[in-house]
């Protein structure tokens, strides 16, 4: 008890004091640990190959961080609601979305903005299906999203007959390749989404309710939290963001390519877990997910810079995922 026993005046106390308390809290938190790990990784990679810090390489890292980071935010929203919620379809949705936006613009001559809106509606619709399947039909999300993993990838190949769709308009490419003051546009999109997610997660009632549902769904029902609605919304959000990433990737590659995004769902899950999200739900950090995504991106970039073959990259990232989840499970078991 003891140290928790402070009266409310302190809760509402002077701002400077609050800030100090905030910093002390942050240093002791998982978020701080993950930030330290990221910085160590960056320093190590930079020492091994100073080219890491070249502007060009940092921009490449930024673009890839945006891709993994946006997916990790979506995945975090899904995982936190618990009950076995997970989205295994994000990589395939990335591919389908990129192919569809290219198809709409190039083959059907639909204006760019309209094409983007259409694609985001379609991927959100897929999310709605995943959400309703979990909440109304009691189908485990693992099953429905695994189904979409196969179906969306297959659909992307069927639509394109396996070939990329090229000749995308220049204004569209800006979304993936553009720079504003040396900052890649995808990074700006990532930071915008992160800001909205942080607002949603920490400043509105929804973040608190998501964690409540993930931690104790029966109790959440008893206190009148709209469990069905909120669980469904998280899948819509996740697959909306998957659609957005597909658009960014298509713009970056200048093509709608059915083979992109393979295993991205795993990277998103790994980023989320490395960042402190419990696979069992209830506990999550948006900041942690972004840092987790950055760690995965830096590892990926380091392997490229150090000239290690692509096959080893999969093995390395797979190992990181298993190690991160194992540590997470052990840590939680110890705390329980």
């Amino acid at each position, binding site marked *: *008890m003891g140290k*928790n*026993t*402070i*009266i*409310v005046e*302190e*809760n*509402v106390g002077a701002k400077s004091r609050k800030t100090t308390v905030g910093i002390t809290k942050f240093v002791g938190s998982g978020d701080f640990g993950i930030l330290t790990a990221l910085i160590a990784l960056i320093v190590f990679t930079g020492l091994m190959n100073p080219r890491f810090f070249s502007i060009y390489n940092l921009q490449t890292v930024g673009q890839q961080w945006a891709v993994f980071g946006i997916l990790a935010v979506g995945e975090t929203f899904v995982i936190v609601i618990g009950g076995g919620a997970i989205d295994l379809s994000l990589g395939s949705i990335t591919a389908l979305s990129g192919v569809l936006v290219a198809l709409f613009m190039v083959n059907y001559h639909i204006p760019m903005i309209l094409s983007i809106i259409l694609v985001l509606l379609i991927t959100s619709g897929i999310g709605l299906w995943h959400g309703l399947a979990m909440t109304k039909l009691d189908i485990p999300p693992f099953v429905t999203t695994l189904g979409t993993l196969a179906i969306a990838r297959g659909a992307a190949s069927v639509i394109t007959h396996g070939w990329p769709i090229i000749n995308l308009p220049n204004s569209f490419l800006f979304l993936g390749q553009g720079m504003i003051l040396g900052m890649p546009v995808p990074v700006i999109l990532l930071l915008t989404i992160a800001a909205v997610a942080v607002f949603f997660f920490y*400043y*509105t*009632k*929804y973040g*608190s*309710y998501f*964690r*409540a549902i993930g*931690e*104790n769904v*029966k*109790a*959440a*029902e*008893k*206190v*009148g*939290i709209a469990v069905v609605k909120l669980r469904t919304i998280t899948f819509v959000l996740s697959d909306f963001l998957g659609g957005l990433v597909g658009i960014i990737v298509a713009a970056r590659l200048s093509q709608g390519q059915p083979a992109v995004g393979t295993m991205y769902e795993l990277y998103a899950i790994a980023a989320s877990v490395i960042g402190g999200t419990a696979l069992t739900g*209830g*506990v999550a950090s948006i900041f942690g997910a972004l840092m987790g995504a950055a760690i995965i991106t830096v590892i990926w970039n380091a392997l490229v810079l150090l000239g290690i073959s692509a096959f080893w990259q999969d093995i390395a990232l797979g190992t990181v995922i298993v190690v991160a989840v194992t540590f997470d499970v052990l840590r939680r078991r110890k705390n329980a």
Partner: protein
Amino acid sequence: MESEYFFEASHITKKFGAVVANDDISFGIRKAEIVGLVGDNGAGKTTLVKQIMGVERPTKGDFYLDGKKVEISSPTVAKSLGINAVYQELALFPSLSIVENIFAGSQLTGPLGISKWKIMKEKAYEKLRVLMKDEVPRVDTPVKELSGGQRQEVAIARALLFNVRLLILDEPTSALSVREREKIGELVTALKDQGISIIYIGHNIEEVFNLVDRFIILSRGKKIADIEKKNTSLEEVVALIVSGGAIGRSHLK
């Protein structure tokens, strides 16, 4: 005729497949009355509570408040009618803070759904100060760091957050120390003095007997007795529960 009861349950039946958890249960609750709802494990007490709270819908039967039929379709509706409950397993969220737990399902929000944390923290603190009297933990402490008694008080603070007319306590003392149990007893009496009615569920019949004005006894989903404490004895209540009403006396229903 004006009813003496402000809250009434009429012919409540709840089936889970073949299981009849509540079988045609009717009763009324007076203002500022403590009613002990007792019965063996699986008698149907919690099921009845869940229907009063709108967590479950009755298969058959209705509820009346001030003589008017009410559709309690969700816990939010129950709360707005002045009915709230503290559940057997407390229904808390261990890794959420005290204030998040107290306002779970009923956060105060401004435009864009922005949580009014400052006001909620003050209100949560106020409620806890009244309940806990002595040491009040910081309201942003995770509930998992609290003792059993403190958790109980957080759950009660949540139930008392809104103007409550009928408070249901489902086995509020099963996990508590003797001192903490006494505290709950004092609290229940104090609430009654404020005009709040209480349905008190418990397995320790002696403890319940000291607290309540009336007993409603369930057995295998059926109401087998509804009796004023002054017309019965501890021994009789225990005998009724154990025998499942087999020793029934005609005046009990």
